């Protein structure tokens, strides 16, 4: 143990504790800006500088360990002046037009400047003037970048992609696309982790809310909206609602108040996905054991995460034929809405305006893929909104969501099972698929918690389950860095699996890049628990028991992997290309 004095208080902490943590242990909060635990401890911003007696210069609290007998002053005159001046420095290169910034009110730089009482900017402004393509789902505005380097770190260390880098040098150092490419020309998975880890408004997702408002105004349009599983864990966060208040039923109420004609649930199509993907897996396993099936390679990878699809296409294109051809739940829903449901309503599909609310940025790109269109060439999903956008729409419509009653979602596409709702958490797709695969293979339902070994936040989980006498080796990875490790181990022959679930974002969709932002907090675990809780309480916990799924198969598709199902619910991942 190390004993030291911080702001006249005796503190005792283990060795190798940072000054920041030591101070926090006695309730002294040293301000930080660039710091992200375990990820960005480079001490770039110099906001956490403190005075240590005996050292003339200040010391960064975030990346210096305590020493025995140290006397630290976190808020001495020297520290205060330097801290404030450093924030003033950053503001001299920051577009402080907070009123028109997506992060206003949720910006670490803004709160820090306010907290430090910065009311005048003493230094001349130098803005870089760089803004990336506003049509791309991920947008960078370097006039707001403070060069904290977090986006570089998360992209490189967590997502193994390395889109961002420091470009230019010295006083003109800038963060931008590595190698000077256009962002759309990179292998960016569009996971959006750089957005949710950006302390300012330098990175944001494209805002599509106006298109939705326009459609809602259009009397000709029938506006449908689907709500992704993970959205129900988080949509109330920025509206001041608790998890208990912010239910999907209350969101449905808000969306109806906004003008949506039908509010549906992506859970429905998640169950549909399980039917298709589970059947595809069993078909593969069956074919592999038949003559001529030697060429069928394992594992089969899940396909519901568009970030993962973008990653595998650009990093491991040779694995593409092992990725399930099933569309993601969003796109299955879009296809069903503009075919089966349009028919059921007796309207032309072009009258239907299909919106999805997703915790995701890559979904915006997925919905725009040339393969995700109906017969007329119109996209199956017209607009994808992130959770942040839908929250903005609720605020812009001055809807007091907390005061609204809960309302049931619409039938039949608003019905989902416990197996579907867990799609939003890592391991959930695997868990749900195994439940139905077990049923399809044995004709009996397993214990719905029989596959709980794939749950949890470990980056790379593996289990072997018995499926009607056949051992099924499965693995689950979340975060593309973990996906990379898993794939490299597969390629090296160190591991072998039959079925692998991969989610691009850490924790799965609950940690998605379209989720509300809480600087410095990783909420995937907490939000995931909400989903696992919903599953546990669900009256139906098997996808194959979803009455709406049964209905669409009986009325429309026939059976999983039928010709119509293949046409509408499956896709060709090779029919479009990622930039080289």
């Amino acid at each position, binding site marked *: 143990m190390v004993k030291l004095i911080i702001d006249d208080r005796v503190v005792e902490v283990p060795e190798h504790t940072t000054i920041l943590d030591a101070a926090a242990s006695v309730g002294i909060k040293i301000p930080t800006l660039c710091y992200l635990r375990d990820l960005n401890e480079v001490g*770039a911003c110099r906001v956490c500088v403190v005075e240590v007696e005996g050292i003339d210069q200040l010391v960064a609290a975030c990346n210096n360990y305590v020493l025995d007998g140290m006397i630290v002053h976190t808020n001495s005159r020297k520290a205060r002046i330097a801290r404030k001046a450093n924030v003033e*420095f950053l503001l001299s290169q920051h577009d402080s037009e907070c009123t028109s910034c997506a992060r206003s009110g949720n910006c670490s730089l803004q709160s820090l400047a306010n907290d430090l009482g910065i009311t005048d900017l003493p230094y001349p402004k130098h803005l870089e003037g760089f803004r990336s393509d506003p049509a791309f789902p991920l947008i960078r505005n370097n006039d707001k970048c403070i060069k904290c380097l977090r986006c570089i770190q998360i992209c490189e260390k967590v997502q193994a992609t390395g889109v961002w880098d420091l470009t230019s040098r010295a006083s003109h150092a800038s963060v931008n696309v590595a190698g000077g490419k256009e962002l759309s020309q990179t292998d960016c998975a569009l996971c959006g982790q750089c957005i949710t880890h950006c302390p300012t408004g330098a990175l944001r997702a494209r805002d599509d809310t106006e298109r939705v408002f326009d459609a809602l105004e259009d009397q000709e349009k029938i506006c449908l909206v689907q709500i992704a599983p993970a959205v129900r864990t988080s949509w109330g966060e920025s509206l001041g609602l608790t998890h208990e208040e912010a239910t999907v039923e209350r969101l449905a109420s808000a969306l109806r108040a906004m003008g949506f004609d039908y509010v549906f649930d992506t859970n429905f199509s998640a169950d549909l996905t399980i039917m298709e993907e589970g059947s595809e897996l069993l078909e593969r396993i069956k074919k592999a054991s038949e003559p001529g099936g030697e060429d069928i390679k394992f594992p089969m990878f899940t396909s519901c995460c568009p970030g993962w699809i973008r990653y595998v296409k650009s990093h491991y294109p040779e694995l593409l034929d092992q990725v399930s051809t099933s569309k993601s739940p969003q796109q299955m829903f879009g296809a069903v809405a503009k075919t089966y449901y349009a028919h059921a309503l007796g309207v032309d599909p072009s009258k239907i305006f299909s919106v999805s609310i997703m915790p995701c940025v890559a979904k915006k790109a997925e919905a725009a893929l040339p393969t995700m269109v109906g017969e007329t060439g119109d996209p199956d999903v017209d607009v994808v909104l992130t959770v942040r956008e839908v929250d903005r729409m609720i605020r812009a419509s001055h809807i007091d969501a907390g005061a609204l009653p809960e309302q049931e979602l619409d039938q039949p596409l608003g019905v989902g099972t416990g197996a579907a709702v867990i799609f939003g958490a890592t391991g959930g797709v695997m868990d749900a698929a195994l439940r139905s695969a077990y049923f399809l293979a044995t004709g009996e339902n397993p214990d719905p918690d029989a596959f709980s070994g794939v749950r949890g936040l470990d980056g790379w989980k593996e289990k072997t389950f018995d499926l009607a006498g056949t051992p099924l080796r499965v693995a689950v990875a979340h975060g593309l860095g973990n996906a990379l490790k898993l794939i490299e181990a597969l390629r090296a022959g160190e591991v072998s699996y039959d079925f692998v679930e991969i989610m691009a974002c850490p924790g799965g969709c609950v940690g998605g890049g379209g989720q509300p932002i809480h600087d410095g907090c990783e909420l995937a675990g907490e939000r995931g628990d909400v989903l696992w809780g919903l599953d546990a309480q669900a009256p139906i916990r098997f996808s194959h028991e979803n009455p709406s799924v049964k209905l669409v198969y009986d009325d429309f598709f026939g059976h999983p992997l039928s010709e119509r199902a293949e046409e509408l619910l499956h896709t060709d991942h090779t029919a479009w290309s990622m930039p080289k």
Partner: protein
Amino acid sequence: MARLHVMERSHAQAVMDDLHDALGRRLAARSLAPCPVEFTAALVNLCATQSCGKCTPCRVGLRALSDLLEDVLENRATLETIDLIEKTANTIYLSSDCAIGYEAGSMALMAVRGFRDDFEHHVREHACGFAENERVPCVAGCPANVDIPGYISLVEAGRYTDAVRLIRKDNPLPIVCGRVCEHPCEMHCRRGIVDDPLNILALKRYATDHMEEDYRPWIAEKTGRRIAVIGGGPAGISCAYYLAIMGHDVTIFEQRKHLGGMLRYGIPSYRLPREDLDQEIQWILDCGIKVELEHAVDGAELERMRADFDAVYLAIGAHNDKKLGLPGEDAEGVVSAVQMLRAIGDGEMPDFSGERVVVIGGGNVAMDVARSSVRLGAEKVIIAYRRRICDMTAQDAEIAGAEAEGCQIMELNAPVRVETDEAGRVAGVVVQPQIIWAPGPSCRRRARAAHRVRPRDRGHRTGHRFRSVRGHGRAVQVGPRRDRFRRGRARIRGPVLGRRLPDRARDRHPRHQCRQGRCGEHRPIPRLRPSDPARGRAAARPVQGQAPVRPLRAQGARRRRAHR
């Protein structure tokens, strides 16, 4: 991974290296008189180029600082801007992550504090008020501000007498200075920006050696004012000269047998031949200056003089020796350099025949003493120095001369105590091996004791903690003066007159020059400071008008050029 690889230097790297070298030469041959604000702005901008771009104070702060300095230069600033500059520099110093940032902040802070008056002048007057506005670098570098380009042109034209006249306008000791001047002018020589500085010293000597004819200065009408100059060294002689040609009645009071001060009692005759010195002094005395030799002036007499004379000039020099504080330094046979050289100056040659002499120190005086000892018949002369030879403040030619004459230099050996025999006479000097260490406040690398001698190293490398230097004859300690800050030093290369080449590259490398800008504080007290004639000349000026009776101190008023 290849174990071997050939390191290739790209074209851009080569260009960068060349530009760095050129910049180094430019800085080494720097003018001391740029606008302080503009210089600070350039410095800050240069520092900013070295930032890695990671931490805020270095990446953004230096640029913000540059903007503010530009505001001062462009007359947009207020006095508050200067405070903001100071705060900004201080934040960069306090909170940068590494030396690239915090040293830049520290330099900027030193500049804004040290140049505060100049910054304020810019803000108030919208102009640079820096007094040191000489635009000729070598003249700016010469403490006497001799018109160096002028006399070089006259030498080139073959008008040697005119060249000497021009020199004497500012410095009445051209013969002496042509031989032993420390020539700081050469450090500022613009030719050094191209390759190497001119050998200005030798050009001056050439002029004095080749005068077509002697001449006498024009002397003003008698003013009837009487002035006492106490001390007959270079400052006193110079002061007396300028006062005399102004028409005053000047008397020099000299404590010793001869005039010349340190020129005679500090510099050995092999460096400054006595006949040259005598010739120079006599030429000055011929202007009608009275001299009282062996006339020491005490406090009571000074008071009387202040009443008797219209003005009194004190040019008393620094002739006291300072003890090193070593145990045994009072032993018989231990002499100070001042003592020894003074005796030689008076023609009382000590006899070192068959003796072993240890000289402690590494400055010019140490070399003078060592080389004089050789001439006085010493059997062996050892120079013990605590730093490295390359850290010595002696001129290269002096060090080389000492070695060539057989003196042994023991570098990195600090004296610890003087050992004596039963009779109490010096028997040797115990020295402590040193290792070189980080630069100290004087900007030179310090040495510290090589304490950590591991047992297995004992007896084969450093051997013992202390080492004894037998010197059963004498130990001469060169203690009175602080080591001097190195100025540009060079030697004559081949037959090309007028060009100098540095014999140690580090001399002119900016890294080895005073990094702290404190060279003004660390000026040595050399035997002939090029500034002495200047000070004497300057002292003569006010006498012209009102004859102040205030004694002027030659040694005390240090001109702090770097800090203004």
